[in-house]
């Protein structure tokens, strides 16, 4: 059988894979993006149920800045992909909030509000917080170097000595991107603080689908090839070099450059048991996953008193970020409503989403019937706690869907349904196997803008500059 040759092969048509594909196709590389599913998007995809379309991952686009903001990741990534800000049709959040017992910090896309709230609520921390913000502003989170793996809590102690404030800052940052239990890597904190607080939240009109369609259209218009329902069976490695991939149906594709967005552990598994055993360490497995419930409502959330775009709540004095010793941990969570963003065309129906931590292994042990029951019961438990922090959406519910770590695993292919992948990121994209590079979650940039940037940076560094 003849082997097809490409200049580059990209595994996975998520945001990072599509972005890498666009960059490569833009400069006339013969490139193919291989996607196991019938639809693109990866973690940030969508599905149809009961006549409605739901986004799998999207709460908001973080890293929001107005068009043309100099030096911002969104500006840079749009330019690299030759997309216009207006193409994304972004609507800004109204406001968001962090809630702990006895504490509420509101924030918007104008950082001054959070600064003011911190100064009022934590007068003793005012100077430390100002120093922290000044230092964070000076750091370039998108030119990360591997460096020393430091944890954010330790670094934050140099600035802040109020544990409640530290916990309150870590809550949204962990939920939006920490793959590490009990903490977050410092560089990740730098990137996420910027993307959540210094920049901000917006929502693409119509959710993630129009954004994905835009990327796919752009990729194809440049001559890029996208193969759906095309799983990669293995990456062919010979003499320490990747030579191409073998597809599930036995077809071989050859290339001197393979970019994988499958995740670190998952990519090593594709390289075969020997590579996997030699390169994957026990600590490389991500364990943090989510249960998410989406409620469709008979009215807008603002009509019954929920007007935040996103609420990060913690129902205890201290915030802990770990895999629960139960199906879920309802203590902390994220509530999001797509209705509470500016929109020229408001969503058709009111919607609220609730996300809490979950343990994949416990969900996997359930039989089919138990699984259905557990989904219902655990969603109720989570909603009971959330209702202490936000207006209860349940009286207005017309439809509900809940997804679990097993769903996340199905969409992303991540072991353990680990939403943010491995705790050990590979920022330079190197795998130790020549010609095989990581992009996406386990390269280490997160969120929609982060994922796009990851694909762009890795394609630039490992395929465009290099030759």
């Amino acid at each position: 059988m003849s082997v097809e040759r490409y200049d580059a092969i990209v595994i996975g048509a998520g945001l990072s894979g599509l972005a890498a594909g666009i960059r490569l196709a833009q400069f006339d590389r013969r490139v193919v993006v291989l996607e196991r599913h019938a639809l693109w998007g990866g973690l940030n995809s969508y599905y149809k149920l009961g006549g409605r379309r739901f986004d799998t991952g999207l709460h908001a686009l973080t890293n929001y800045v107005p068009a043309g903001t100099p030096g911002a990741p969104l500006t840079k990534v749009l330019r690299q992909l030759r997309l216009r800000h207006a193409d994304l049709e972004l609507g800004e959040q109204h406001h968001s909030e962090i809630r702990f017992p006895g504490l509420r910090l509101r924030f918007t896309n104008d950082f001054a509000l959070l600064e003011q709230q911190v100064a009022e609520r934590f007068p003793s921390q005012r100077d430390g917080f100002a120093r922290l913000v000044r230092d964070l502003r000076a750091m370039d989170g998108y030119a990360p170097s591997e460096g020393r793996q430091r944890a954010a809590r330790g670094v934050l102690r140099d600035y802040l000595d109020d544990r409640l404030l530290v916990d309150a800052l870590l809550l949204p940052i962990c939920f939006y991107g920490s793959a590490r239990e009990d903490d977050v890597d410092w560089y990740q904190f730098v990137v996420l603080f910027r993307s959540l607080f210094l920049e901000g939240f917006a929502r693409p009109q119509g959710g993630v689908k129009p954004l994905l369609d835009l990327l796919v259209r752009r990729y194809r218009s440049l001559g890029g090839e996208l193969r759906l329902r095309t799983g990669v069976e293995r990456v062919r490695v010979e003499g320490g070099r990747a030579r191409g991939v073998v597809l599930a149906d036995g077809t071989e594709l050859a290339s001197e450059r393979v970019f994988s967005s499958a995740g670190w552990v998952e990519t090593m598994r594709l390289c075969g048991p020997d590579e996997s055993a030699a390169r994957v360490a026990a600590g490389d497995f991500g364990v943090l996953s989510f249960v998410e419930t989406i409620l469709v409502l008979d009215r807008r959330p603002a009509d019954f008193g929920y007007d935040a775009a996103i609420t990060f709540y913690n129902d205890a004095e201290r915030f802990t970020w770990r895999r629960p010793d139960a199906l879920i941990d309802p203590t902390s969570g994220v509530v999001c409503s797509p209705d509470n963003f500016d929109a020229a065309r408001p969503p058709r129906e009111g919607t609220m989403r609730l996300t809490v931590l979950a343990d994949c292994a416990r969900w996997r042990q359930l039989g089919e019937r138990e699984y259905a029951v557990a989904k219902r019961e655990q969603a109720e438990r989570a909603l009971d706690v959330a209702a202490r922090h936000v207006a209860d959406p349940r009286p207005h519910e017309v439809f509900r869907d809940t997804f679990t770590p097993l769903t996340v695993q199905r969409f992303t292919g991540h072991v353990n349904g680990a939403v943010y992948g491995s705790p050990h990121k590979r920022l330079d994209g190197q795998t130790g196997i020549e010609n095989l590079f990581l992009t996406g979650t386990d390269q280490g940039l997160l969120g929609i803008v982060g994922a796009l940037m990851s694909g762009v940076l890795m394609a630039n560094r490992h395929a465009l500059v290099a030759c």
Partner: protein
Amino acid sequence: MTRDEIITAIKDIIHAINPDEDLAGLKPGEPLRDQIELDSMDFLDIVMELRKRYGVQVPEQEYRELASLDSCADYLLPKLHDKELKVGA
């Protein structure tokens, strides 16, 4: 291409990379980075577009030769003198 055409070619590439930037007032002798928003990723794109449109290779250690429109013209003239200008590519 003449020197002037090379400058037109570079401006056209910058316009493709960032359509929102106003290039009319660019001073040829001054560094591009002092006049418009261009980072290292954008310089990579200028290099990639030069290769795509005109088949000219600019090694990484010579990117600095592209600092201003004048220096672009000086550096690229020997490489591009026998090439035709393509705009709006």
